[in-house]
């Protein structure tokens, strides 16, 4: 029962108490729910077809609005997908808004059987300490044949296929900076 219809019914209905009221909530075409949302053109994160999507977020980017995803639809301009999506793409709203998404950093202490919350600063500091200690302890400047190799076999780094090219380049820079030889990504599997 739309708000407008309800008002109509009560006003007219009031008079009906005494007599017979024959007016009724007339069927009407339902409200179009995304007429004033903000549209962002983006790309689906899932497979390599790279379908274009339009992400509808709450509000018109006014300052006091925290945008939330209300609907995701295909981008008709994208030359490959032309507005279509597969079931995963069509439910992107679920992926962005579902409440099992992690919201803050956590740590599992050695030997513990549960997570503990940790602040960003403390997490980064402890990770940096681990990285430096492991690198210093396992650094191999020269291999068994005496050749200069400068590698850190104590660290392995994987991932990147769901990340941007730019981030992958930054990852390669960090891998090179730390001398990490064990480096792989989903492309392998």
């Amino acid at each position: 029962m739309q708000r407008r219809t309800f008002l109509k019914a009560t006003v007219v209905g009031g008079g009906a108490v005494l007599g017979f009221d024959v007016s009724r909530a007339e069927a009407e075409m339902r409200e179009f729910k995304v007429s004033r949302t903000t549209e962002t053109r983006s790309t689906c994160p899932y497979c390599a077809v790279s379908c274009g999507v339009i992400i509808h977020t709450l509000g018109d980017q006014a300052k006091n609005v925290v945008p939330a995803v209300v609907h995701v639809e295909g981008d008709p301009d994208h030359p490959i997908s032309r507005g279509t999506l597969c079931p995963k793409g069509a439910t992107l709203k679920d992926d962005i808004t579902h409440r099992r998404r992690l919201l803050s950093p956590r740590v599992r202490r050695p030997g513990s059987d549960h997570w503990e919350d940790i602040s960003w600063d403390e997490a980064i500091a402890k990770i940096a300490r681990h990285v430096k200690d492991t690198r210093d302890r396992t650094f191999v400047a020269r291999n068994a044949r005496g050749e200069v190799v400068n590698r850190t076999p104590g660290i392995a780094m994987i991932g990147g296929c769901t990340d941007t090219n730019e981030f992958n380049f930054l990852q390669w820079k960090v891998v090179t900076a730390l001398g990490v030889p064990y480096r792989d990504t989903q492309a392998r599997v």
Partner: protein
Amino acid sequence: MTNGWVDIKNADVILAMGGNPAENHPVGFKWFLEARKVRNCKLVAVDPRFTRTAAVADLYSPIRPGTDIAFLCGLVRHAIETGRFHEDYVRLHTSAPCLVSPDFGFDEGLFSGFDAEKGEYARESWAYQLDGRGFVKTDPTLEDPQCVFQLLKKHVDRYTPEMVERICGTPKDTFLKVAEIVTSTGNAARVGTVTYALGWTQHSTGVQMIRAAAILQLLLGNVGRPGGGVNAFRGHSNIQGATDTAGTFEILPGYLKTPVGSQHSLREYLDANTPKPLLAASMNYWQNYPKFMVSLLKAVYGKAATRENDFGYSWLPKVDGNYSWMYIYDDMYRGSSTRAGGQEPGPEGFITFGMNPVALGPNSKKMVAALSKLKWMVVVENVETETAIFWKAPREYEGPEPAAIPTEVFLLRTFTNSARWLQWKWKALDPPGQAKADQEILAAILLAVRDLYQKEGGALPEQVTSVSWSYSNPYRPDLGEVLKEMSGTALAEVHDPSDKTKVHTAGQQLDGFGQLMDDGTTACGNWLHSGVYTEAGNNAQRRNNADPLGLGMFHNWAFSWPANRRIMYNRASADAEGRPWDPTRAGIKWNGEKWVGDVPDMKPDAPPGTYGAFIMMPEGLARLFAPALNDGPFPEHYEAVEAPIANPLHPKVTSNPAFKKFTSDKDVYGAREEFPIVCTTYRLTEHFHYWTQHQHDGLLNEVQPGFFIEIPEALAEQKGIRNGSQVRVISARGQIQGVAMVTRRLRPLTVDGKETWQIGFPIHWGFAGVPGHTGPLANLLTPSAMDPNTWTPEYKAFLVKLEKA
């Protein structure tokens, strides 16, 4: 992909094999059906299961998992025997006329040069015959028995339709129907494309399967032509981008080789990796290797890279041996590895950005055991994956008690992605809660480590401190600035070699990799992506979807590497005079002065005949004979590592000889006597790997709620299994239980005269995920087996037994 998604609509025949595009790339599959609607294209699906691709295919052919090489070599033989191959194309664009050294041979399942003790091939006997000037000897008539064409003909001669039926289990008449349709494109008028995915890559003979498809497509003259090519459908959104930007240990960005210990200086490294042309008419584009490498070093070490210190070459970590996926966990599990003859420690620290090894396997138990040896682990994820909680995995994963696992696990929170065409990703909204973008997390870790080295020193601090990180906000690197760095910037005044008048002053963005220098005056993070960010702006953001040629190239939509070319090797779409084989579907054509159409895969103003069509190859020709591979220059059928039968072609060498088995106590291989049923794993269209089951109240968990095992109806009857009942599948490494889906879409195959059963199950469920939508990890059963070239695990064919639960 050599071609593009939309280009598939130009095909007359599509062979969808080694992949299930309808389920795993449904929107890309639109163009398969567009081809059928527009030009009545024939879609052939070859798959062990009758999948949703087969449901709409014109012809479906069953096949036993892991026998694709036999099938494809059968098609190659059919093309040659019936003469239905594109002879002009083969003479002009492929290495068919090249002569191979007489020492090359193949006998009893082994190519020449196999060192049984080391389990490797010595490849000297696979070399070309060279003339005085170092160029390859050729026989244009293709008669010489040592020419590649004749060697190929002899090699595939054994793959008769009867042998294909015996190995693959595909009925002979079905195979001949497929052959009839596929080889119908072996001429100028018709074009066919081959599409594949993990159905080919995830085998111990994966690379050779794709080689066989490439040889077939070259014989049919389909490579480089619109509607043709060999098209790999990548899984993740940026698998292509991740490999381009060196996501794997053996390459640097732009597929440059990672330096090895024995290459002491930059000069030694460049000499080892810069090939010399093998034919006069070979552009041999890799001769520009030094320009790409020096520009990369300038990009990564900035001012610290000077001519005097070899542009920082010594700081690059060198590799000895294999550091790929399965070796990471093998060395992690053992705690050490032998490198260049000496012992070196295995990984004790582990960082994963959105990757889930416990689920990805193979052999999940080994994964859990290996991770339990770590001192520390950083998981950057947006959901709590199996890897994040490996320390509380259920009992059947046989992980140690949590108290006994020393690993300190940090679970940090991320979002972001990209696409194959370098397409810009506009951000819709900020990450929820205190989540940070990937680049912020990575920057924070690097900068914190750098501060520690500056304060306390340690092992080779210069390696850490000299990597340039000069972004306007180092803690939150702007992706636009990073893209500029990758695309290529002039560090001093640079003249364009092909057009002297074009000059770039210091700080300006270059136009493309043609302007890269090897004297340190240019910096470029990835020569392949060069040209994505020019002075004209960020081409990845372009959104003009006009397609004047009507072939689905979209040159003004985003940027396609290399150099915005949309169809690779498109010179091969034209004959010797530069006329397109099929005028209605022209890739590029010579208009008298220059090549027009797609961005030419050729020197724009080089008349036809100056250079071969395959500019990256030293001989400028497409390689029918590929001596650079670890398991043979020609594809040869080998059974999977867990083989259900002895190899009918050469029983003494049943599986791929170039694969060395893993030897830890977790690496167990099953024998066919105890595990008679062939098993395969695959994905479903309603889920994405191990990601979408975490969506609480998600619609995907609704339309595909839980784990199941697909069992042929006849086998289910034999074992008294009802549809929907619980069954148990056991391999040498583990066992899983799930709902039986009894179906006629899986049929018994008569292989080598015996009735052979096959079953399969999807991979999407694990012990992490929304309660009610968890399940067993498929990779509890998969073996520690892999391809000797790409080291990709063999998920697609292994042995199991089946029981009622």
